[in-house]
């Protein structure tokens, strides 16, 4: 491959990357006794932030309130810190760190930014409702052959394909 300075390396073979991910999931099961997860960490960050602004309100709320006062003392919060570090390390060593708003080549930053936030709100709400995200339910629950997790994964793809045409503009090249 060309050695132009800072040129990003090719991505790995997806199947081999999948094996690494599967091995990570497997070791998570036998060491932690629990699989991978990400959305609850971000929900706890949000509970923590809301707690800074309105501590009474969070403590009294039925859902966040059940997490107690020390919301960040939770293993998935630490896992997400590791994911960030792993993403940074891997992207640095592969020359793929870029401060950019990823989008279609013909798409403006504004449209993409609005859709990113909007999609995030959907995912944040849906992950709480479904008790997990593609990591916690899709990977972890499916590897445990949990019926609800497998259904969740199938319906996530159904929802994605159903809405794909509506938001295709942001990926136009």
């Amino acid at each position: 491959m060309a050695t132009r300075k800072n040129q990003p390396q090719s991505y790995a073979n997806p199947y081999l990357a999948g094996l690494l991910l599967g091995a990570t999931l497997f070791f998570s099961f036998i060491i932690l006794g629990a699989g991978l997860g990400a959305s609850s960490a971000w929900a706890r960050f949000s509970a923590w932030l809301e707690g800074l602004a309105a501590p009474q309100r969070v403590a009294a709320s039925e859902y966040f309130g059940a997490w107690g006062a020390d919301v960040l003392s939770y293993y998935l919060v630490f896992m997400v810190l590791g994911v960030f570090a792993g993403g940074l390390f891997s992207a640095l060593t592969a020359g793929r760190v870029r401060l950019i708003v990823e989008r279609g080549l013909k798409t403006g930053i504004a449209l993409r930014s609005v859709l990113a936030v909007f999609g995030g709100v959907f995912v944040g709400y849906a992950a709480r409702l479904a008790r997990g995200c593609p990591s916690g339910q899709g990977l972890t629950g499916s590897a445990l052959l949990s019926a609800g997790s497998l259904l969740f994964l199938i319906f996530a793809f159904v929802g994605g394909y159903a809405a794909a045409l509506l938001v295709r503009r942001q990926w136009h090249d």
Partner: protein
Amino acid sequence: MINTLYAADALNSTAGFAFSVLIGFFFGVALERAGLASSRKIAAIFYFRDMTVLKVMLTAITTAAIGLAYLFRLGWLDPASIYFPETVYGAQIVGGLLLGIGMVTGGWCPGTATAGLGSGRIDALLFLAGVAGGSVLFNETFEWVKPLYEYRTAGIVSAPEIFGVSGPAFVVGLSVVAVILFWISEAVEQARQLRVHQAPDYIDYIATKKAPEHLAAGVPGRTLLQTGYYRTSIIFLTLFSAALIGAAAGLLFVEPVELPELKAQWRMFAGQSAEQRLMEHIEKGRDHIAPEDLARRIMNEEPGLLVVDIRPPDEYRQFHIRGAVNVPPPDLFDYLEPYKDRGMIVLYSNGMNHSGQAAAALRRQGYDNVYILTDGLEGFKERCLKPVSLRSYPVSQEQAQRIRECREYFLGGAAAISNPASSDISASN
């Protein structure tokens, strides 16, 4: 036998946190290496331009499932030492649909966005801000969404059980489905003549607004494929497919461990009923109390036992366990202060959600003597108060006697005798 941190109740300890960071690190590396720290590459699956998401996820799920199945089958890992997610059909189907819509709109999911944030993607940061907002919105609307959140709660349900096959057979089927989808994915990608989407070069185009040479020169996608995209060779995919199915099929040739204890544990994974699975879980859980156990303790007037009904007062008035006090969750801290670490506090609600949440909150405040009633009031009615005549399974003489005693004590002699067929206990007051 492998001891997990979950089984040792040490997930949220220093060791749990340290291992979580380490495991998360590899999680992040795997996602970034696969190209899933890129929203363009993730979203491309919804336009059949790049099937990486499917390839990576299915490979990971299948390999982890095969590995676990071997450990269960060999008796090296007790399924009860693993945290199994609960199945709530309504919430997970609707949640899945909404999440899919959000994923194609935002271009990320929480895990990949975290790795994307590590790669400098600003849209990942915006997406995660949205996720935080969505979580707060969920908390604020929890009362409204709760019926859906709990709709069709089914406990721990294994898919092999639904299909009526053994765990290993299901894993073999899963690997065959995965392999078929891999080959379809490769064919789809080839048919779509992949262009910019799959090569990592586009990140510089987005950053600089200056097209990479091969793009500026109008070189078609095929050239880019050679520089940027790993095209899976037929030989590799054939070997990979064979290895995956072979590893799964090997499960069928491993003799399950014959020790009676392990055999029972293996049955769970092989398709034991969800109720049974839950029971075994609860047996391990030190914070649960079985309905029969609670009934016995109340009837023996055990000293130091405090039974707390945390449901709304009108539900309490309709029916409650004899001797229970009614304390709504907001008043729990004040009410229970004198009972902290004294005797035994048992919380119950209709199911286990509310009591479980309340008990967790209390435990974080240092209450080590809080227990929740397994399956809540509904479970108590079902297991202690349901008349023998209405039970679909055989009941021994001894059990029948205990049920009669329970009905007499908790429902009053009149209810038990005058209306023996009544299953609607709350209506009989």
